Each structure stands twice: as structure tokens, then as C-alpha cells.
């Protein structure tokens, strides 16, 4: 019997609730998906994935998620920095607005972005003379994913920036380091773990994003058709195995990427020591 001595009782109840909750919400659906994959066998699985259309949808989903998360990494860091380090009127309002993508139904975000960036929308009309079309192209997909991923980076980096000891930066400056060097050698190393975590969360969130993207993507097979939409299309064809195959592929790739990011975290921590 597993016993961990703790001054507070309730380990059994807590563990039971944890197992029940986790099983119902996470483990059972994933096991069903894996079971479907095992039932069809690796050959059939590969067969479902080998079509150019599936491959291009998977490539699009992961490419767009990577681009959007990379953008959020830079933009989110800047936003978090400004929000924590400076005091200006309206700061709290902007700070609250960062959470909106969490709260807003993603379909609403998708429709709003499409309305703004469609050829007859305010931004769409302004960008048209420059030859840039956002809605119904891959750029539209990036935009939607930037929207849903932004709060993840900001909210993971913000508390860390808040805790950075400003004296370290001042010491670095008095010791003759340039601003760029202070940023590179003093500030960024401290922020790296939280930046990576934020990046990983934003990436994981945007790879599977469906609601906002289908409104702004053109949904053309091989061009702007994302993998989650292809899963829905397979279900409409009653092709449950085909849908499960794409789901498994997404699960596998996402899991590997998160693993890679975690490994980078560990490596990074060893390199610069615990921060």
C-alpha cells in the first residue's frame, strides 16, 4: 500500500478523485483513440496518412502553429515586458485584454478577424492595394493562431519578469556591459525556461485549433485545409478509421515536439544552472 506521510489526511480521497477525473476526461478518450489505431494496424494507419492531401493538411497545421507561436514568443515577451516594467495609463485595461482570447469563444474570434480582414473589411481594404490578402489564405490562419496563442506566452513570462532582480541588470551596466549584452547574458537566460514553456503551450493550443481557423481559412484541399478540418471531413464520410489516423498522427507529432521542448528545458537548466 502506497503511503506518504503528510500532516494532512486525505491522500486516498485525493488520489481517487485524481484518477477518476483524469480517467474520464483525458485517459479514456486518448485510450480509445490509441485503441482505434492499434485495431487498424500500422500498415492501414500509414495508408490513411500517405495521401498528399492528408500530408499537406498536417504540414500546414504544424507549420502555421510554429510560425504563429514563434511570433507570439517575440511579441508576447515584448508585451509582458512592457506590462510589468512600465507604468502608464490604461495598463490594467491592456493587461486584462490579454486574457480575452481565453474567454472569447474561438468562433467569435474567427468571425471577427474574418470580418476585419475580408476583402470588404477595414483592414482587408487597406491591405489590398499592397497586394496582401489575409482572409482565406495561410496568412489568415497565422493571424487566428497568433490570437489564440498570445496569452499563453504573456501569462507564463509575466510573473518571471516581475521577479527579476533589477540590481543584476544595474550591476551588469555598471560593470560596463552594453544594453544588448545585459539583455543577452543577464535577462534572457532567466526568462528562457518560462519562454519555452509559453511557446510550448501556445504551440500545443494552436496545432489543434479549429473554431477560429475554419472561418478565416479558405479551407481549400491541399492549400488552406487544416488537419482538424480534415478529421471532421473524414467523420462526415463515416470514415472513423481515417479520422482516428489523422488524430493519432497529430497526437504523435505534438507529443514529440513537447518532449523536445522539455528536453531543451532540461539541457538549458543544466547549462546555466538552476534559476
Amino acid at each position, binding site marked *: 500500500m502506497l503511503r506518504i506521510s503528510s500532516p494532512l489526511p486525505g491522500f*486516498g480521497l485525493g488520489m481517487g478523485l485524481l484518477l477518476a477525473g483524469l480517467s474520464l476526461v483525458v485517459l479514456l478518450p486518448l485510450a480509445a483513440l490509441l485503441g482505434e489505431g492499434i485495431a487498424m494496424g500500422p500498415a492501414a494507419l500509414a495508408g490513411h496518412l500517405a495521401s498528399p*492531401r492528408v500530408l499537406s493538411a498536417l504540414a500546414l497545421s504544424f507549420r502555421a502553429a510554429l510560425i504563429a507561436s514563434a511570433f507570439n514568443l517575440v511579441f508576447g515577451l515584448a508585451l509582458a515586458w512592457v506590462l510589468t516594467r512600465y507604468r502608464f495609463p490604461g495598463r490594467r485595461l491592456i493587461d486584462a485584454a490579454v486574457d480575452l482570447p481565453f474567454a472569447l469563444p474561438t468562433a467569435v474570434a474567427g468571425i471577427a478577424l474574418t470580418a476585419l480582414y475580408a476583402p470588404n473589411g477595414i483592414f482587408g481594404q487597406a491591405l489590398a492595394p499592397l497586394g496582401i490578402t489575409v482572409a482565406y489564405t495561410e496568412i489568415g490562419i497565422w493571424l487566428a493562431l497568433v490570437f489564440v496563442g498570445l496569452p499563453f506566452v504573456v501569462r507564463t513570462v509575466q510573473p518571471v519578469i516581475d521577479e527579476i532582480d533589477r540590481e543584476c541588470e544595474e550591476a551588469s551596466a555598471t560593470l560596463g556591459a552594453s544594453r544588448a549584452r545585459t539583455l543577452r547574458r543577464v535577462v534572457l537566460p532567466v526568462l528562457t525556461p518560462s519562454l519555452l514553456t509559453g511557446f510550448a503551450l501556445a504551440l500545443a493550443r494552436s496545432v489543434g485549433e479549429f473554431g477560429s481557423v475554419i472561418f478565416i481559412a479558405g479551407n481549400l484541399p491541399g492549400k488552406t485545409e487544416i488537419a482538424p478540418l480534415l478529421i471532421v471531413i473524414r467523420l462526415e464520410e463515416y470514415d472513423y478509421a481515417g479520422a482516428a489516423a489523422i488524430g493519432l498522427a497529430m497526437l504523435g507529432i505534438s507529443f514529440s515536439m513537447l518532449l523536445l521542448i522539455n528536453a531543451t528545458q532540461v539541457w538549458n537548466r543544466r547549462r546555466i544552472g538552476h534559476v
Partner: protein
Amino acid sequence: MTLAFLRNPATALAIVLAAGGAVTPTFALAETRLLNVSYDPTREFYRAYNELFTQWWEAQGHDPVTIEQSHGGSGAQARAVIDGLEAQVVTLALASDIDAIAQRSDVLSSDWQAKLPHNSAPYTSTIVFLVREGNPKGIKDWQDLIGEGVQVITPNPKTSGGARWNFLAAWGWALKASQGDEDRARDYLTQLFKHVPVLDTGARGATTTFAKRGVGDVLLAWENEAFLALAEMGDDAFDIVVPSVSILAEPPVALVEGNIESDDQREVAQAYLEYLYSPEAQALALAHYYRAWDKSRATDEDIERFPDLELVTIADFGGWAEAQPRFFGDGGIFDQIYAD
């Protein structure tokens, strides 16, 4: 200690799961209820029809009945019924979706379509073009859709029932235009989809893309959706263009035998579907821009709205059982068009 058993994770897990099972509610049926599972563009029609039916039903001396509606993409609605949504009545966009319910579950027998008149389609529609006011691109027929610089809006036939009718209407015209040459029909469809900049997942989404977002020059639409768009957004924004050939779209209805719980419920469900064919309900369908069969109670305005045109039918394609896999199945003609 009284709560000692809670220390054991397995016991606690079992208790939590049992508690979850114990609170499963059991509802008592106070009155007869019907759930009608339908597709997107019928919202307005069934809202009006349910009122008409319940009034008539109570006037016949029956107990009151509560009718609940559910709307969504036709294919997704069919899947919900297969997965256990307890609909007593389904009213979907095409027969193949009801066929799918019959094939993939045991709630419906496969001869459902013979049980009501007109292939179980109390109202029909067709596919027309909605163009911008004044028809600036001069679109008159299917051939003009693949003209230089013309953009066509249609939803994805994989996810939208209406889009399948669009696709087959285009195919029907192309076959007629080329004296039955299937290769040329395929070429035409390939060309046509090169002119499609956005594939929405449903008919309502495509209407929004065209009407609200200003994308595209032509919308391939259900005739009833096109009239509705004119009625709701003003007829000075769009024009309807009727092509030389289109398709007779038959959205069918069926009683879902396996979800009937009592004789009372069966009686109401049966009456609900049969009353759709009554002169009053047919007039209501005509007023909601559907082509209905019985015009005896309809106003002249509702009858004269519909132009005559040559219509191919789904039977020309060998019925949905043949057309569905051939055109829209995995690796079917629609997939081949995008693979080229």
C-alpha cells in the same frame, strides 16, 4: 476512524464513479414530445410549421404535444442520430444522409423512402445562382462560371448537403452540354473548382462569405436560401440568376421507428409527417420559398415566384446509393478533382 476507507485510492475511485452513476436522472414524460432533427436552412420553415401543426393537432381533440427542433449541417445531424440522439423524426437535406442512418444503426429500416408520397420529400428546391446587383460579370449559365476572373462560392460537398446538390447540378448541365461526355463533365468541374476561393463547411457559411464578406461573384445556393437572402438583405444587393439546367433537390423526411417510445408518440410523429403534405402546410412551405406539390391554398405571389427550368433528378445519377460514393466518397470524383 470513520473515514478510514477513504484512504484507499481504489475504494475512493469506486465511490466517486458510483456517485456519478447514481445521479443519472430519470425523466417522467408528462406529455408527448417529439424531437425533429433537421438541417440548417429549414429553421424558419419548421418554426412556423410546428406552430401550425400543434394548433391543428389540438383542434383535432388530441392532447397537447411539445415539438423540439435541432438544426445543423445535414451530415453532422445524421451522425448525431446514428450516435444515439433520440430523434423521432428526421428532416434532412438529402436521402443519402437518412440512408446512412438506416445502414449504420438499427433505428430505421432501409425502405423508409417508400413510406410517404413523392419519395418522402414533402417540399423540394433547386440550385440557382445568386449574383451581385446588376450582374456585373454577366453570368447567365453554368458556362459563364468558369469565365476569366469569375469567383464562385460554394460550400464543401464533403460537409454540406447543399453543396452536393450544387455539384450534381453542375455535373448534370455539363453532361447535357457535352452530349453525355463524362470526361468533359469532369474537366468542367475541375475548372469550376479552380474558381472557388473559399470552401465553407455549410450552406449558411457560404451565404455569409458571399453576402456579408463580399467575396466572389456568384453563390451557388439553394433556391430557398437565395430567396431568403433577398428577403433579409434587400433585393437591391443581389439578383437571382436561373441557369438553363439545374437539379430537383428533394430534402426527405422520415419517422425514426427505433426511437419511438409509445403508441401515442408514434401517432403524433406519423401525423406530423403526413400533415406536411396537407394544403395548409404546403402553402406554408411555398411561402418559405420551397417548391411544394399542392398549390391549392398558396397565394399567387408564392406560386409565381418560381421560374420553370429543366431539372435533372437524383435518379439520373442512379440514386444517392450510387451517386454518394462515386462523387463524394473517399477517392471519389470530388477528391480526384483536387488531387489533379
